[in-house]
């Protein structure tokens, strides 16, 4: 022993480890294995009993309680919180046209530069001509998106939302992540709605409080 240097003094906050004595019981491991199996089997029987009786605790609200904490994804899914930012969607007006006016505020705010918009003008004779423009192309690269939600914050028209409840989806090729206007308009909010609940009163609408644009002074 003299060949080894002396142990340094223990620091004051050191915890002394109590080693289990090396006996035949511990060295053979068998009692510990049986004990562990017992824990597993007791969970197995309790879960089976709860499943058969239909008394399984909710994996979301009661998952912190002792008991089952595992869910069978993807058959079972944990509901996401209300403000969860999922895949984008474009909201529509009453007539089904996109609310987006192609102002490019979202693509300006986007730190990942994943939004491409091509603006167009309404045709001659359309009541929105001169007042608004619309997106001829609206493309989001969901692979590049970092789901920060800045686009939703930036939108002055409540036209883009991330309330689909769909999280970033894995696909098997990159081009499937390119969501165009059609896909974005087809997605609904978690409540199944396509329209926004912020109706906008435009000059010319009956709901508009002020002077009609066709009103001649």
């Amino acid at each position: 022993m003299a060949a080894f240097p002396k142990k340094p003094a223990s620091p004051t906050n050191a915890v002394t480890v109590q080693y289990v004595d090396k006996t035949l019981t511990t060295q053979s491991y068998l009692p510990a294995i049986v004990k562990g199996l017992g824990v597993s089997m007791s969970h197995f029987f309790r879960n089976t009993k709860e499943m058969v009786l239909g008394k399984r605790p909710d994996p979301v609200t009661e998952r912190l309680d002792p008991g089952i904490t595992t869910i069978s994804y993807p058959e079972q899914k944990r509901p996401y919180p209300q403000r969860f930012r999922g895949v984008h969607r474009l909201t529509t007006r009453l007539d089904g046209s996109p609310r987006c006016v192609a102002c490019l505020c979202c693509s300006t705010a986007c730190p990942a530069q994943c939004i491409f918009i091509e603006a167009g003008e309404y045709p001659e004779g359309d009541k929105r001509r001169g007042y608004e423009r619309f997106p001829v192309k609206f493309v989001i690269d969901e692979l590049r998106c970092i789901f920060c939600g800045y686009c939703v914050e930036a939108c002055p028209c409540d036209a883009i939302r991330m309330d689909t409840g769909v999280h970033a989806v894995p696909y098997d090729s990159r081009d499937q992540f390119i969501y165009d206007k059609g896909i974005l308009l087809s997605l609904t909010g978690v409540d199944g709605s396509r329209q926004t609940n912020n109706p906008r009163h435009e000059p010319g609408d009956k709901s508009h409080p002020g002077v009609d644009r066709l009103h001649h002074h």
Partner: protein
Amino acid sequence: MPTFKLDGREIPFEPGESIIKAAWRQGIEIPHYCWHPGLSAPANCRMCLVEIKPAPNQRPVMLDIVELDRATGEYKPVQKPKLMPACQMPAVEGQEVFSDSSQHVKEARSHVQEFLLLNHPVDCPICDQAGECKLQDYWLEHQGTQKRMRDEPIHKPKGVVFGPTIVYDGERCVMCTRCIRFMEEVAKDPVLEMRERGNLNEIFVAEGRKLDGNYTFMVEHVCPVGALTTQDFRFKARVWFLRSAKSVCQGCATGCNAYLDYDPRYNKAHRYRPRDNEAVNKFWMCDPGMLSYKRAHEGRITEARVGQKSRATKEALAEVKKLLGDVAPEHVAFVLGAQASLEDNWSLLALASKMGSSRLYWTGAPAGASDDILISADKSSNQKGVLALAPNAKPYSVLLDDVRGGVVTHVVALGSATPAAGADDASTLGMLRALVAIAAHDDGALTAIAHVVLPACSWAEAPGTYVNKDGLRQLSDKALEPIGASKPGWEQVAAVAKQLGHDLGIKRVKEIRAAWLGTEAAAHASPAEQ
């Protein structure tokens, strides 16, 4: 030069000059909408109000007003000085003017700004002017409060098509009348007018007319707000995505100074904006010139061609060696391009002298319409420069004669367009045994018939010097990255020279400039060209 004091700073002025213009010359901006250095001053926006200290022998003009005392909630009578529009008041020797340093002026600006925004639709997200709008800038700088009017704003015509180029939005208009005055004073075509009064004011086009002619784009350019937008740029891009390069218009020999606005993300040019140059274009540009930014993309040659078939540049250069490798130099003609930069032409001249050929010709675009405002009949941007560089270069018609006479059998040309468009031109060029064209655009007889075409950069993709019709040497900066396989013209010429066994000894633009300007001028080259 006499001076006056603006906020305590001495400002020199020409006698008769207004306060705002004298300040503008010194780089001090007194906020304004209706005033424009190139137009008359109607003083109708009231944004440039300043306080002027009366001369010692004059009584100050004071106005009695009431002011809300926020502590007591009562109005109390006070006095304030009568403010004067800086665009109308001629500067007077020794006069003291207060702009940013006067609280009265600051208040007046805030109130004028609030008035101008009373009926504004605040549709900045869909307005093309957003990002370069005076209403936005001055709101932030001088107002910063919400409007107090809670009524529905007045609605006016929107999206009114004024002509083939311009769309008008009455709700955004602040009635500065700059567009009216531009058409009257500069374009000499008083086609715009104002009608109604007060809230119902609007700009309209004279009965039976359209806003057309050669200077309609400038109407949009002088508009300080988004009331006038061009059909061409409308909804194309947001200005904050664009970068500007100091460019020179290539439309004609006037050489108007312009900013070429381009989107660096897509390497795409979007528009021209006139760049002030008192010696050339003042503040203006013509419509064909404003639209000529499109040539940055239209008709570009992006690949080398051998016998009109696309090839790699390497193969094309090998073909050049085959065609020109062992030809007697007296049969090789060098055609300088009046549409190419001085740098490109200089390198072609260098190649000619290395090869020992003195057969120099020049070509350019065919002449076109002209007017007495800006447009020049000479549609080549650099004819003066080419002729200054090579005074003995002969015109294109002489080249055709020499080809017919069999004196010239091989041609190396810079550019594509030719001044003559005769029917037998093509057949004459067809007599050549070799025609090597180094060109950016595919818009003329030379590239259409060339045995080898080498893609050159357009003016937007490489820095270049151009000499306008008055002999003014102007620099155009690089905006876009070279498109396709194109390289600056002088690089292609140097590559041709290398194939033929000559070394022009140039690797950078500034070496070319040093060669004809001397090292002193090259040292002043902007960083973009190095």
